[in-house]
């Protein structure tokens, strides 16, 4: 983790602090006391993992912080990550009854307060059940993989968690900017799952059907939490000079010096293509780098996929927005980016997504001068899904209600099954829980595999 390049002094490496400070004890107590302790509360229903929010907040108000953290982590093992990255305005806080004529309770920040209490003190709130003799391989240590591993370990199954990268945590570790979630938070969750007896093997990648068959021969069940692929190609001239938004975010978290030198080095005039939450994050990294940053999006403010609060966050950070603009080429001179060639767009009839189709305005080409272009236009479907020979649905792994794939002992969850609906950490966590429950039921019914 603590690596620096010899050519970038430590003092010049960015240190992202969380945008929101932790609540003080007084703030947390006052806020917790504001909660009405609704019965059958809408916040709990709105949470995809159904954390018993009134109960954990009540426990904060009574000073039972360990109990509070446990209530959260029982329903959501990644409660510390979700406290930071969940779109609470769209979920729990959006459903809070106090929002009707007043301010909703700051559920996300209270959740962070309670889970910080657990992690800061290294408290162990769970103990694994006695070993069942069954084993499960979990592929991918992002939120879905960690969640499933934790639930299975709690039930007494022997879990091996495979991660192709150097660090565990997947999206939480590599894909969320430090302003929202410092890398330590997700690494502590990886550590917590290890403390439950889960073996985490990093640097191990599942690449093909053969690999899956090996896992199936060694384990009683396999849970695939593969995530998504890389940012898709723009298909414009000069593409090779465009930086991958996810790579920029990843570098900002684990190797920030890489944004200063080498292929990922950011200039002083950055253009980000795309207007989803990843684009917002990449743009924010650019701003913290000290650059002028412009987001270029082919539709308008109304169609952008970033949450409203993310958009406002970006504006607050000083990110500029250029709507109705489609990049058509990267201008490169002497191996250096000097601009992004664009065309103005107009909105036409709704397309398959239900949003108005953007159409180029003839003769409206122009160049935005810049020295860095970052693309954040979504992620490709998991290519591995095809290679594994599992049934697919629109390029994603096809699963039933119990998250079982077309193969009996193979389950999948997280973004790799997210055919519809917005991808989110909290939904991946819920997938992990549901898959663990299905796997547990299946293992209970099946005879143990011979050693």
């Amino acid at each position, binding site marked *: 983790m603590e690596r620096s390049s010899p050519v970038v002094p430590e003092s010049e490496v960015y240190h992202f602090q969380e945008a929101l400070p932790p609540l003080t004890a007084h703030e947390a107590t006052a806020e917790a006391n504001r909660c009405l302790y*609704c*019965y059958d509360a*809408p916040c709990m229903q*709105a949470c995809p993992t159904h954390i018993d929010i009134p109960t954990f907040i009540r426990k904060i108000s009574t000073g039972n912080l360990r109990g509070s953290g446990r209530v959260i982590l029982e329903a959501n093992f990644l409660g510390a990550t979700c406290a930071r990255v969940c779109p609470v305005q*769209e979920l729990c*806080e959006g*459903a809070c009854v106090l929002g*009707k004529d007043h301010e909703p309770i700051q559920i996300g920040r209270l959740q962070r307060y309670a889970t910080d209490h657990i992690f800061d003190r290294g408290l162990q709130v769970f103990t694994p059940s006695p070993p069942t003799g069954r084993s499960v391989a979990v592929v991918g240590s992002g939120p879905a993989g960690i969640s499933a591993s934790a639930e299975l370990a709690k039930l007494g199954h022997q879990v091996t968690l495979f991660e192709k990268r150097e660090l565990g945590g997947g999206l939480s570790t590599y894909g969320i900017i430090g302003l929202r979630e410092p890398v330590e938070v997700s690494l502590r969750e990886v550590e917590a799952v290890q403390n439950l007896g889960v073996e985490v093997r990093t640097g191990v990648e599942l690449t093909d059907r053969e690999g899956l068959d090996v896992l199936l021969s060694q384990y009683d069940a396999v849970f695939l939490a593969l995530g998504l692929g890389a940012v898709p190609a723009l298909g414009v001239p000069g593409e090779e000079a465009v930086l991958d938004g996810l790579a920029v975010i990843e570098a900002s978290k684990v190797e920030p010096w890489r944004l200063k030198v080498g292929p990922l080095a950011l200039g002083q005039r950055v253009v980000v293509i795309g207007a989803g939450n990843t684009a917002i994050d990449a743009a924010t990294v650019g701003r913290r780098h000290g650059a002028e940053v412009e987001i270029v999006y082919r539709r308008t403010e109304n169609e952008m996929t970033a949450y409203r609060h993310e958009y406002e966050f970006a504006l607050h950070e000083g990110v500029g927005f250029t709507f109705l603009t489609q990049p058509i080429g990267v201008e490169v001179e002497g191996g250096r980016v000097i601009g992004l060639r664009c065309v103005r767009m107009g909105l036409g009839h709704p397309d398959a997504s239900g949003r108005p189709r953007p159409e180029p305005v003839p003769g409206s080409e122009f160049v935005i001068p810049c020295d860095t272009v970052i693309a954040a236009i979504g992620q490709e479907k998991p290519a591995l899904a095809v290679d594994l020979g599992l049934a697919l649905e629109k390029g994603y792994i096809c699963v039933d209600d119990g998250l079982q794939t077309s193969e009996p002992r193979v389950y999948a969850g997280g973004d790799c099954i997210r055919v519809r609906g917005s991808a989110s950490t909290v939904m991946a966590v819920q997938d992990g829980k549901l898959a663990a429950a299905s796997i547990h039921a299946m293992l209970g019914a099946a005879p143990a595999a011979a050693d």
Partner: protein
Amino acid sequence: MADLSVNFAGIRAPNPFWLASAPPTNSGAQIHRAFEYGWGGAVWKTIGAPVLNISNRYGGLTLGGQRLLAINNVELISDRPLEVNLREIAEIKRLWPDRALIVSAMVDADPAAWREIVMQIEDTGADGIELNYGCPQGMSERGMGAAVGQVPEMCQLNTYWVTSVTRLPVIVKLTPNVTRITDPAHAALAGGAHALSLINTINSVMKVDLDTLLVTPSIGGQATHGGYAGPAVKPIALHMLSELMCDPTVRKSGVPICGMGGIQTWRDAAEFLLLGASALQVCTAAMHYGYRIVEDFIDGLSNWMDDKGFASIPEVTGRSLPQMSSFGGLDLGYQAVARIDPDKCIRCDLCYVACNDTAHQCIDLYSPEGVRVNPGFDIRDGGKHVADGRPRPVIREPDCVGCALCANVCPVDGCIEMVSVPSGRPSVTWDELTATRPAVTQEWGAMEAYREEAGIEIH
């Protein structure tokens, strides 16, 4: 603008807000400052026998994050030399002739001791004397304070020793640490008291510190009970006040009562007046926020009186007393039911759980489509839209006994109202019923027969 001036047993003041005998009235400098803020009067912190105070003296009650809902103290009477207090009392009265300045006193149960201090108080020019028969700790062990207030004979005798030698109005301050508040009140009246004041503080142990396991306040590792005061004691004070105001002997005597116990705002003050107080004393609120609070006391009470058309304090005093009755005087035929305003309801369902778990199970949940549903939710669902489909609580009126628990737990003002409805039952009080049909008090069979006859169904 309403006239807030009072004439309490001959003691005049520009408003009814007086500081109670306590730390806020410990010195001339303090009372001078309080009067500058507008307090209508002050009862000087009890003077009398020599004492030594200890450290520390206060325990506080915090509830739901709100601090000092009550305070308890193990402070004694004034520990400043008597001569100093007397000199300062005289100075303050000279500087503030229009304010009520009353001196609280407490000495050994000895007529000579009382005579001595009464003469000294008279010499200061003070407007009245308040006899402290309430101090629940420290002094009571020495035969003073509550030791006098809790024994009617002592109360009468001590009061008489004072009233027989002074020309000043004598107020007897009662302790609430008795079974029947009327007993010491009658004794005080028999002793010639010109007025009563209540309540003094209530015996209490405030709390135990869960980190140190020490009882709070901890005085070098030791603890004792203290006197409980502040907003939390108001209902007890209001009860005792109304009990006295409804008591035939007290009524016949015509003595005024100075109310105190948890007055924190002008609203509390108005309640004390409505239940019969003619003047008011305040302590904890001033200890919490300082003397400045009197500005809103005066302003708020005055505005409220203007709104209600009350021109003077005597018009307010006792206005709500006629409603006070005993259980036996209440109408058994009266029926109220709870009604929930669906537009105000925020769907917290606290009424539902309270009624279902601990009352009469008469609130149902209905979906927006008008279907009766049970609590619970679809675990596959999520997102803020669930708030739109949230069921709303509806009272099943025929089964509502009108207990009002729901209205009390509802967090939204005016959302659940108790509405009077025709019960179809005869209008009769328990006293009337049992006078005419004594058997109903003795036999369940007779009671059931009456219920059937009167159409009273118990769910």
